[in-house]
């Protein structure tokens, strides 16, 4: 009984998708705030382009990444627009999995895209994805606690100073911890932060011959500093804190300082979501030996898979969603703090945005000082600030992240954890054929 109508239904669905394929495009995206706003503006797009219908697949970041990788690696053709990060774009472009985006319309104003972001999405001078929003990392702090302790924030803080300040404002009895940092293991979680810390302490992931340097003195110093700092002045159970958990802690007044994504600024500054909106200070990410690679660079981008059969309609959509007009539209309908940040110079020149977002200059500066091609003190063979843009990095980064997580939890010493991480990364790189 059930089957008798299940079969024709399934058949009809397949037919329908065939007939409508000329104008329906399937957009796969992450369910972060900015993308939900984009989904909410579907009607605006369809009004302007009546010949194109949008179909949305919205998934959580990790699920989406797995889903898209399966589809693109098998040439499945299920999606016309994919939301991917700066890490995937160069790797996928090299595999010829993405449509090259040359001759974009003049009105798109390609030169307006922030240079570090644009460079990260280009291969041999052509763009392979368009940036939807971009971010770097910076420091948030509580101006009230700093005033009480008589601390003045310099233009460029150092990690040594941060440790000193953390000791002064740490007050666990009253539920305030000196500093909150990521501890949840994962290449996009704790390792995004730890990589920038290692960079600024003068370390690097690989030497010029692709041999890992995880147990080098720089790594040991950086990770040792991180573990001590968190054990002395961090919140309990830091190994389960990722971006989201730390944002909840900081916005409920439990942290004196927090170094993390610039994209948190809008939410921390919004009194509806944050109890510290009126006592929020911003500063660049702290540095140690070198300013190089001290703050990361990431962007969520829209790309067209080579397997799409509606490439023109897809291109129309992604140029719309990453255009100056789109940013204007979000500003007018959702408020200027909600516009997708970190992609266009014009956003930062806009007086309405400057007025609504006092953190705009810090964000712009952070993004512009991040250089994925030159992020380590000693020369390195790879591109990426907090990532190494090779396919093996997801596995490698997560392995190392777990071992550093174990050191943070006190299950093993920092030296032992890094020695073990070194052996594990060495094995992966050898197996992948980087050296014999």
């Amino acid at each position: 009984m059930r089957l008798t109508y299940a079969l024709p239904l399934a058949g009809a669905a397949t037919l329908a998708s065939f007939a409508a394929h000329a104008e329906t495009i399937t957009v796969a995206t992450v369910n972060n705030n900015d993308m939900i706003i984009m989904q909410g503006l579907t009607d605006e797009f369809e009004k302007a382009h009546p010949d194109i219908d949008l179909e949305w697949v919205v998934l959580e970041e990790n699920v989406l990444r797995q889903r898209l990788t399966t589809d693109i690696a098998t040439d499945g053709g299920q999606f016309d627009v994919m939301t991917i990060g700066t890490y995937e774009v160069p790797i996928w472009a090299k595999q010829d999995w993405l449509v090259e985006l040359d001759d974009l319309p003049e009105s798109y104003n390609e030169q307006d895209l922030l240079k570090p972001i644009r460079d990260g999405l280009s291969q041999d001078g052509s763009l392979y994805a368009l940036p939807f929003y971009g971010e770097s990392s910076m420091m948030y702090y509580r101006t009230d606690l700093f005033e009480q302790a008589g601390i003045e924030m310099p233009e460029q803080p150092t990690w040594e100073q941060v440790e000193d300040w953390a000791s002064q404002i740490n007050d666990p009895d009253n539920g305030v911890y000196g500093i909150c940092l990521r501890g949840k293991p994962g290449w996009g979680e704790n390792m995004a932060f730890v990589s920038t810390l290692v960079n600024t302490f003068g370390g690097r992931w690989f030497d010029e011959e692709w041999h890992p340097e995880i147990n080098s003195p720089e790594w040991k110093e950086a990770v040792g500093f991180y573990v001590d700092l968190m054990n002395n002045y961090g919140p309990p159970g830091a190994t389960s804190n990722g971006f989201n958990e730390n944002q909840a802690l900081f916005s409920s007044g439990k942290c004196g300082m927090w170094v993390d994504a610039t994209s948190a600024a809008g939410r921390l500054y919004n009194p509806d979501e944050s109890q510290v909106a009126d006592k929020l200070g911003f500063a660049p990410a702290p540095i140690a030996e070198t300013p190089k690679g001290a703050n990361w660079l990431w962007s969520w981008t829209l790309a067209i898979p080579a397997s799409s059969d509606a490439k023109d309609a897809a291109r129309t959509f992604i140029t719309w969603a990453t255009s100056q007009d789109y940013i204007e539209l979000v500003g007018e309908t959702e408020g200027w703090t909600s516009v997708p940040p970190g992609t266009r110079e014009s956003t930062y020149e806009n007086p309405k945005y400057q007025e609504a977002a006092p953190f705009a200059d810090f964000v712009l500066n952070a993004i512009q000082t991040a250089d994925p091609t030159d992020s380590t003190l000693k020369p390195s063979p790879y591109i990426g600030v907090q990532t190494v843009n090779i396919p093996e990095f997801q596995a490698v980064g997560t392995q190392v992240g777990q071992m550093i997580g174990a050191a943070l939890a006190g299950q093993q010493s920092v030296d032992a954890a890094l020695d073990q991480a070194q052996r594990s990364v060495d094995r992966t790189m050898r197996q992948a054929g980087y050296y014999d």
Partner: protein
Amino acid sequence: MNPTMTKKLLLTLLAWGIALIVFFPIFWMVLTGFKTEGEAVATPPSLFFEPTLAGYHEVMARADYLKFALNSIVISFGSTLLALIVAIPSAYSMAFLPTKRTRGTLLWMLSTKMLPPVGVLMPVYLLFRDMGLLDSQLGLTIVYMLMNLPIVVWMLYTFFKDIPKDILEAGRMDGAGTLQEVLYLLLPLTLPGIASTGLLSVILSWNEAFWSLNLTTSDAAPLTAFIASFSSPEGLFWAKLSAASTLAIAPILIFGWLTQKQMVRGLTFGAVK
């Protein structure tokens, strides 16, 4: 109080305790769905608050719940029906006409459940791509049917084995063919067992998330994909996620509640010999 009374009281308390522990996460999820995002993450968590439908409103505004729910219903019931059609004859032959290899075949069937599904994701994806089954209800129905088949065959086999052969033989003496034997004797006698097997298969298909997330896009996406779109690594989402989850389990919860009697009867069927 005499010792038997004390024992009874302790057992009652224990049963209540376990029931509450099992029920608590569901209760908390339903409760969280009616909170604001701020209240949902508040520490200490609040038990008393002003309920709001904001989470539900947003969930309904962002996704077409009915479409997802209809997909879930068609796919889970469709796959269960298919599985029963295939499993009843095979369980019949194993229970009443066993050979030397029956035991081995049964164990081999079960062993397919020990393979992690992700191990065959790529080949299945490629097959589905070439057959045009990606993002179709039919494709997911077939996968779920195959996924649940070992369990369905096993359960039916144990239920069928409890039927004395003599009853079927008596039927045959009266001139019943194999088909009549199955339809008029075996099935009515084991109906509670078949019902509970079917219910289990429906519930397993309803809750399956790996294949449904990987093989569907939008047209055939069931409720598991609906839930997956509300958890997020950025921003607050617990109230919305709880509201979405409550909506997703509501149909199967109501269905399970209505059929509770058959379930329990089927699961304890033949337990006392």
